[in-house]
């Protein structure tokens, strides 16, 4: 129980990760898949940031009055990862818009069925 309580951020991370992956596999709607992808990526932000937090820790300021430092690097890394995540999501949604224009649907099974009927774009 103690291990569970002190590592609860990891449990949240794993839960989000699994939920995101599950949505991507289980849902046929292309937008919902992207929602799953986003949740999955967000779980990784937590994986990085949580260990970087030290209770009572300050930013690394070189001074005698501060002795407990929290590592700022994970936060900076995740800022980059968030930007990448936004770019991916934006691009994914843009492609879904184009798919809707080309196929008239964003349901995976309908799109695959449309392609089986033959398919050069007009």
């Amino acid at each position, binding site marked *: 129980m103690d291990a569970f309580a002190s590592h609860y951020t990891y449990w949240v991370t794993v839960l989000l*990760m699994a939920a995101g992956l599950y949505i991507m596999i289980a849902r046929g709607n292309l937008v919902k*898949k992207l929602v799953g992808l986003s949740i*999955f990526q967000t779980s990784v932000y937590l*994986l990085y940031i949580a260990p970087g937090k030290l209770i009572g820790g300050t930013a690394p300021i070189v001074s005698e009055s501060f002795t407990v430092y929290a590592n700022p690097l994970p936060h900076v890394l995740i800022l980059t*990862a968030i930007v990448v995540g936004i*770019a991916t999501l934006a*691009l994914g949604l843009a*492609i879904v818009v184009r798919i809707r224009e080309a196929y008239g649907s964003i349901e995976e099974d309908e799109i695959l069925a449309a392609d089986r009927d033959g398919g*050069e774009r007009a």
Partner: protein
Amino acid sequence: MTFAHLLALEVVVPLIAAPLAVLLRRSSAAWAIATAACAFSFFAALLLAAEVWANGPISYALGSWDPPWGIEYRVDALSAFVLVLVSGVAATVAPYAWRSAAAELPREQLYLFYALYCLCVAGLLGMTITGDAFNLFVFMEIASLSSYVLIALGRDRRALLASYQYLVLGTIGATFYVIGVGLLYLMTGTLNLADMAARLPQVQETRPVLAALAFITVGVSLKLALFPLHLWLPNAYAYAPSAVTAFLAATGTKVSIYVLVRFYFGVFGLRLVTETLPMREILLALSIVAIVTASLVALWQTDLKRLLAYSSVAQIGYTTLGISMASKDGLTAAVVHLFNHGITTGALFLLVGGIALRAGRPEFERMRGLARRMPLTSLGIVIAGLSLIGIPGTAGFVTKWYLVLGAIEAGRWWLAAFVVLTSLIAVAYVWRFVEAAYLSEPGARTPERGEAPAAMLAPAWLLVAGSVVFGLHTGYSVEGAQRAAALLLGGAP
């Protein structure tokens, strides 16, 4: 000192060329700047490779922040080899795109195409040159995001779906990679690959490190399309514009293989990868299945571009087979195959792009009697096809030779026989082209007599010639690969 800045320029020049191409807007200006940037990178990569051969690895502290705190760019025998391949193919495909992209893309989007092409080149070169695990992720995403868009530019609407599938799977792969790097960072407190390798032995047997190995393996395997994680590849290659397919097939998966090799041998170390976890056996099994299944599936395709896409999956299997041997000959085969298959598959997809230009989709039905209508293109495909099979005298043979040597050295005669026998399946699918183009009468849908434009034929034939020259004259490619293999087996990079 000025020489050292070449490491940064190698990546920065194509990276800056991308926004410049967008600002210039005129497609001819954008093409010129993209071609110049790729040519510069190729030239710089050659200089760096020569320097590494003569004086050993070069390290560059980006922004003068000393490693391991700052981001380090590092060129050694292995990364120099991959840099030359990537920038060389980029510099060959860029002139080809002048006619090919103009024929396949809307005129007003051309400048964006060249901008994305530069971004993709910068991303792949960055992945190769960086010595920092997180920086590698950022470059991986630069390369991936631009390649999703490049694939979506294909004329067929199925290109959009292929791009979407690649986006979802590619992002899962990259995220798995970040999870692995995060776990390694938690355990070692560093992101510099060399520093990480030095600190890992203290925490080697812990569960987070093993989990990191698993996450990085799965994530990078998605990117390099290791069977059964290859599902995004055939559609993406088949429906992307010709120039994009040729470039990505020759470089994209190759750089991911480089990342896998770098992590296995340069960071985790041979002991952890092969003894604590059965990675060698897993890779061996997956490679064998990949070679057999993908080659057989390739046989039944009705479209030459899809056939070559499946053949690429099989060829990735040969590379990972070499990695799984983890011996000097095996790794030499893997590294030299990156190069040999890179130029061979690049040549094939470039020539198929010429057929696509004249005949629409490169279906076998439209290629009946093609040898009489497009003799140079057909001959090029046959020669590059021989290299794909691994006929002596072509580049593909060099790889097979070292794979067989590695298998015999490990005492696995059945594996040597397997490598030779599966080449027969490649004979069968290359024969399908020969049968259609040379032994059939031209049909109603075969294009009229006339070659692809010289601007497309010349780069393609350059690569065809390369796949013969590097089969007869193996000095540079094999020695480069042997140095890389020695470096990998020698421990820390």
